[in-house]
């Protein structure tokens, strides 16, 4: 059986890596190339790099910077941020990126999912869905770094993304992101159950127990985390870490009981 993937997410802002809380208050983590080298040495399963200002600034991916990051990366890498066209996705694949992560552009023009999926295969297309739950009313999908509310509900948008050719869903709870208060298991379970493609749970991880819970109870296929892998201790000192192989193996055995 397959071991659930544990995926660090790195947030690019200009030339640096940052970590946010609820998509705000970016804190500087370090240099992307150096951080990638450290994750590489730790033999992480897969890595996701998200340019968090590209869509908001209305620009495309910084190809030179991405090529530099990829050259230090001997694990699968997914990149998201500012991708609005097929040719940008193809250039990213050519540079050594395995998967593109679509978010704002997929909501604005869902055909983009199909175009890239047809050209590169569904496995190369991740649709990221950022979800906010208001105190009253249903959960909604947000775009442009959670600055714009859409009328979409996460479940039906995830199903449409799958139908249009997405190979995976990166499901993020904006309310939990960076808070280290655990994943939104209810949301993850609802989306996972409605899909046949893998769902990566994101937002809120603080420990391996959170991973186990969302894999088992939330039926996620993979887990993504940011703060947990870049901060240490109550004062959030920057320290890159990743679970040991034996811990991940145990995690897989626990999740198998789902």
């Amino acid at each position, binding site marked *: *059986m*397959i071991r659930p993937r544990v995926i660090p997410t790195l947030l690019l802002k200009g030339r640096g890596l940052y970590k946010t809380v609820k998509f705000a208050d970016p804190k500087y983590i370090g240099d992307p190339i150096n951080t990638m080298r450290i994750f*590489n040495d730790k033999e992480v399963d897969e890595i996701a790099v998200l340019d968090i200002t590209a869509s908001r600034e209305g620009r495309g991916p910084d190809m030179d910077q991405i090529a530099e990051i990829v050259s230090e990366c001997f694990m699968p890498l997914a990149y998201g941020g500012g991708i609005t066209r097929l040719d940008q996705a193809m250039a990213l694949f050519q540079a050594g990126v*395995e998967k593109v992560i679509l978010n704002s552009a997929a909501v604005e023009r869902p055909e983009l999912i199909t175009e890239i999926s047809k*050209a*590169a*295969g*569904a*496995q190369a297309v991740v649709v990221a869905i950022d979800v906010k739950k208001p105190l009253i009313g249903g959960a909604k999908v947000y775009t442009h770094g959670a600055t714009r509310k859409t009328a979409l509900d996460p479940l039906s948008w995830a199903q449409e993304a799958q139908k249009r050719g997405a190979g995976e869903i990166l499901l993020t709870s904006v309310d939990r992101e960076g808070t280290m208060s655990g994943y939104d298991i209810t949301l993850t379970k609802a989306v996972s159950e409605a899909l*046949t493609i893998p769902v990566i749970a994101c937002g809120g991880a603080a420990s391996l127990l959170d991973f186990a819970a969302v894999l088992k109870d939330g039926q996620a296929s993979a887990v993504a985390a940011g703060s947990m892998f870049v901060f240490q201790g109550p004062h959030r000192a920057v320290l890159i870490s990743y679970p040991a192989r034996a811990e991940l193996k145990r995690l897989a055995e626990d999740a198998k009981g789902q």
Partner: protein
Amino acid sequence: MSYVAVIDYGAGNIGSVLNMFKKVNVPAQAAATASSIEGASRILLPGVGAFDHCMHAFDTSGLRPAVEHAVHAAKKPLLGICVGQQMLLEGSDEGELPGLGWVRGRVRRFADMPGRRIPHMGWTEVHSTAQHPLLAGFDETPTFYFVHSYHPECADPTNIMATADYDGAFTCAVRAGNIAGVQFHPEKSHRYGMKLFTNFAGWNPQA
């Protein structure tokens, strides 16, 4: 100078593959012309995307005759990766176009099963079923990164190099003389991939 020709026919993750060869100090170059294939000592056939898309791109690239000559007449070692491996077989459930047919059998889709999500995506142990130099010298069962919905089904079991398990065993590596293919992605599989690429650089099928 001997080098690996990484066939650049417009349907492969050339960047990652070249990157990994560089990491293990094996000279390699993207090969988009017949002469760069003729000059190479080994061939790597990558492939990403749909089966027909890759076959069509390979056929129209004009590189197929040079690769066929390198493999069949000059007997150079060839390694296919992912769809580059699937192309070695006679055809695929995914497409209409015939494969290269250098390995007998077809490429099949994973059957739908409750609880089994397709594509199969992630790290899975690879179990060697043949004493093949490409999978030799690992000090533990190697784990490789997979991402695929289709896998080879060999007509002749002696062509199976390795299997993996995804709610049932499937063939994840094939061999036929100087030809080999792997379903997984050694170029994205950390030290396991480094070892496999190093093995490929030292593989001498005629010896």
